[in-house]
């Protein structure tokens, strides 16, 4: 469980995510400061809501004078993709207590989902380490946001460059997946799905829609290939 060795494991796994969160957490705090949120409010958001995409959306939509109801609806819609992460951790949480599973699931983000998924696949990982990875990352996110509020606009970080750290993390996670034909179908279909969703104006849920299209396409592909008796083409882990 929470041994010294596990804490070390978790911390080293968390380093790339923590650095990425510093890079985008500070600009996020600066943005929140610009709509008059104070350090306490930003800390509450970072600690209990804890969503990079969401915490950028709230001030941006507020600046565009959206109503409170439409901010809540849009942000919630964007975060529906978390349901997929939650479902995908079911096998890993089979033999852990409800309390541990709850705190782990409640602190998963896009990035920590990716890191834990990769580590679970490699085998040397467990839910307690995954929870600590989440908490290290969350601490980095919350502190960076508060720093952003405190420095305000005294510091300027080019956000397009900083946020490319996250894009790079997702690219690395994607290309280091097992490249079975079914997985490749999942990836290509998911990318097409995201593009089509955006084309249809479904920018908010684009990630969820794309990922579901990818899963469905790979599932259909593996069913067809499996039926025609082709050798192991649909074999995923």
């Amino acid at each position, binding site marked *: 469980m929470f041994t010294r060795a596990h804490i070390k494991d978790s911390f080293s796994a968390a380093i*790339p995510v923590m650095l990425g969160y510093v890079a985008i957490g500070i600009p996020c705090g600066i943005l929140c400061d610009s709509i008059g949120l104070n350090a306490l409010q930003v800390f509450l958001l970072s600690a209990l809501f804890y969503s990079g995409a969401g915490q950028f959306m709230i001030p941006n939509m507020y600046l565009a004078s959206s109503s*409170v109801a439409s901010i809540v609806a849009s942000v919630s819609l964007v975060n529906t993709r*978390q349901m997929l992460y939650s479902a995908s951790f*079911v096998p890993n949480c089979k033999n852990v207590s409800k309390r541990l599973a709850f705190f782990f699931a409640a602190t998963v983000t896009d990035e920590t989902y990716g890191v834990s998924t990769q580590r679970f696949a490699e085998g040397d990982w467990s839910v307690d380490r995954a929870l600590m990875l989440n908490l290290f990352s969350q601490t980095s996110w919350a502190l960076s946001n508060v720093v952003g509020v405190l420095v305000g606009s005294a510091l300027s970080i080019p956000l397009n460059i900083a946020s490319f750290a996250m894009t*790079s993390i997702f*690219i690395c996670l994607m290309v280091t997946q097992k490249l079975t034909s079914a997985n490749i179908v999942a990836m290509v279909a998911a990318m097409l799905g995201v593009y089509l969703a955006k084309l249809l104006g479904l920018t908010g849920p684009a990630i969820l829609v794309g990922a579901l299209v990818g899963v469905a396409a790979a599932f259909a592909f593996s069913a067809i290939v499996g039926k025609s008796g082709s050798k192991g083409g649909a074999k995923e882990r």
Partner: protein
Amino acid sequence: MSWQEFWIIFVCCALTMLACRVLPLFLLKGKELPDGLNRALGFIPPAAFAALVANDLLAPGMFAEGLWPAAIPFAAAICVVVVALKTKSLLWSALTGVAAFALLLLI
């Protein structure tokens, strides 16, 4: 933003987020999952990572104002792919991506 607006947004968003994060796991935990569902769950990682990448890189009309500035994220992404395949390291990938993106913007 007033405190009242803040509380409404904060509480509602935090609750829907918690539900999305926790409910699917608890609804499925402890049940024998049918084979098909297990197989589908296995496709979530490649599909989700590809969707996250596509969400950052692709947008309708992205080349509307010419090829070059718009191609910078793709050029940087290719550098990341090379480094990711070689090192399998998230940290090196992130550093490469940020450096490549910043350098390409300077050109």
